[in-house]
């Protein structure tokens, strides 16, 4: 049997021994297209299953407010039916790989599922596990979730032993620091230093491991460990090690910032049903975002930013901006959805961010839990002490920028250009927020005469302007050097003029 498999033509995902894979289609380009098409549509299936489950649950538990589900259900159903015919090859590839590696001991190459969307592979077994552990107690559900994600991660290569050891060591040291008899602020600063050390260590000494690949998600651990210190030292929710580790664990899969209190608040009865319902909703949104992200990726492969001018360039930039943000929605909502399915009451991180009418509103709708940390620990103390609005806004944005910049700055590809453009991004955001607050105050009569507030037409104009603002910023950040940046701006402006 092993000889027979070894004699088969090899594809990037292992031997070509599954339906949908033949030797003639084994070139990487063909395989990648095939894989992306099937995964995009299998996301629809996942979403369809999620929405069907959601409806049944809503019916059984008499949960109202399912209007959001009905609204886009028909389109989703169409995609779901189409997806059913295309989902099979992807899981056959996965099954074939697992069989050849773990049963036959064959050294087949790991399937490359790093493209978008990746949702079905991750959530399908976890959703199943959530259903199996439905009636378990909180601790048993959490233990099942952590064990399954660990096993799955190790089996499919998302995790490795070195990464796990590094993570456990990090969590242990953080836990010890939080328990030390020192002030909250001192503990919080030591934890910041520890997180930065983790980023450094994983980038330099553990390169090539899973934890290094996730380095970009490590500095946002700072808000989480910071919250832990404040919550524990406040004696409101004392930490336990067996909860602290899984609390941080989700972050390594690009999960949202969470507070310790939110994650482990005790829920039961009808509230537990609502939390699980919210989990399905989060996965449903992730499935939709996953399809959109895959779509924008394909679109930008056909219509490249460096080949367009004027309005088409702006539209392509918008697609890039939406796609990039959708990928973050997929990552965050997958973790949120799974945690909720297992009964952990994690809050939403997004609130219809595409409908923002001003840059201020954009940040009121985007990454809400991170925003809450920045407002609580940066914006509020400055305003409270000095009432310096400009300083408070700029400090909040600079801290946010620093947490995003540090992991990227570890990359060997990083240049002065990248630092400048990234710092500029956060400063421009800060200035935009400041002026949106200040300008209406300076021209109250004009604002009143124009009827800007609570007017549908102005809301639409606001959405278009804000979307254009973030699309252009996306296009500028996507430029690789100064020449490309100037070229991008010229192509955008000259055509319009």
């Amino acid at each position, binding site marked *: 049997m092993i000889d027979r498999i070894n004699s088969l033509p090899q594809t990037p995902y292992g031997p070509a021994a599954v339906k949908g894979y033949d030797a003639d289609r084994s070139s990487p380009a063909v395989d990648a297209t095939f894989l992306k098409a099937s995964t995009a549509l299998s996301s629809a299936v996942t979403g369809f299953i999620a929405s069907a489950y959601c409806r049944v649950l809503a019916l059984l538990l008499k949960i109202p407010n399912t209007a959001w589900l009905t609204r886009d259900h028909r389109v989703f159903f169409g995609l779901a039916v189409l997806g059913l015919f295309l989902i099979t090859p992807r899981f056959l590839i996965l099954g074939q790989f697992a069989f050849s590696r773990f049963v036959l001991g064959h050294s087949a190459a790991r399937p490359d599922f790093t493209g978008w969307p990746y949702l079905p592979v991750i959530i399908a077994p976890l959703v199943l596990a959530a259903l199996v552990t439905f009636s378990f107690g909180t601790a048993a559900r959490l233990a099942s979730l952590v064990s399954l994600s660990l096993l799955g991660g190790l089996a499919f290569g998302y995790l490795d032993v070195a990464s796990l050891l590094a993570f456990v060591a990090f969590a242990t040291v953080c836990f010890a620091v939080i328990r030390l008899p020192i002030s*909250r602020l001192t503990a919080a600063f030591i934890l910041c230093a520890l997180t930065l050390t983790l980023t450094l260590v994983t980038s330099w000494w553990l390169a090539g491991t899973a934890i290094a690949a996730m380095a970009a998600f490590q500095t946002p651990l700072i808000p989480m460990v910071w919250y832990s210190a*404040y919550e524990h030292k*406040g004696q409101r929710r004392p930490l336990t090690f067996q909860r602290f580790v899984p609390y941080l664990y989700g972050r390594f899969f690009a999960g949202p910032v969470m507070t310790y209190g939110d994650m482990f608040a005790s829920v039961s009865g009808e509230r537990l049903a609502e939390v699980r319902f919210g989990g399905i909703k989060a996965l449903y949104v992730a499935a939709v975002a996953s399809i959109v992200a895959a779509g924008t990726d394909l679109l930008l492969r056909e219509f490249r930013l460096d080949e367009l001018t004027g309005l088409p360039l702006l539209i392509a930039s918008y697609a890039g901006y939406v796609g990039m943000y959708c990928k973050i929605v997929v990552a965050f909502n997958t973790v949120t959805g799974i945690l909720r399915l297992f009964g952990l009451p994690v809050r939403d991180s997004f*609130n219809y961010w595409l409908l923002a009418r001003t840059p*201020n*509103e954009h940040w*009121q*709708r985007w990454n*809400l839990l991170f*925003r*809450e940390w920045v*407002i*609580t620990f940066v*914006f*509020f*103390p400055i*305003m*409270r002490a000095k009432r310096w*609005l400009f300083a408070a*806004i700029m400090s*909040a944005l600079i801290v946010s920028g620093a947490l995003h910049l540090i992991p990227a700055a570890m990359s060997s590809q990083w240049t002065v250009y990248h630092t400048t453009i990234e710092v500029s991004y956060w400063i421009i955001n800060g200035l935009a927020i400041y002026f949106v*607050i200040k300008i209406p105050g300076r021209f109250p009569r004009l604002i009143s005469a124009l009827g800007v*507030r*609570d007017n549908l037409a102005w809301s639409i104009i606001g959405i278009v302007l804000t979307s254009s603002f973030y699309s252009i910023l996306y296009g500028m950040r996507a430029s690789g050097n100064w020449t490309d940046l100037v070229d991008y701006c010229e192509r955008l402006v000259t055509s319009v003029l």
Partner: protein
Amino acid sequence: MENEKRIRAFLSERFPAFDETFDRAEDLSLVVDSLGLFDLLEFVEREFNVDVPTEEFSPQKFSSIDRILEFIDQLQAHS
């Protein structure tokens, strides 16, 4: 009830997007921006004669009328 009326009056005056149709439990996060949050905090301190310690502040405590009332009750109980 009286406390709720005072909060509603302030929200209507300070935030144009707020109106009487807002439920007590309804999310205020899109109505109250970061600067508005600070104004709301000052209003609570002034109007209800309470002191909000810096470490007690969290945007979540101002995310609905219900939560604001709950927070005021807590502060008054401790003062």
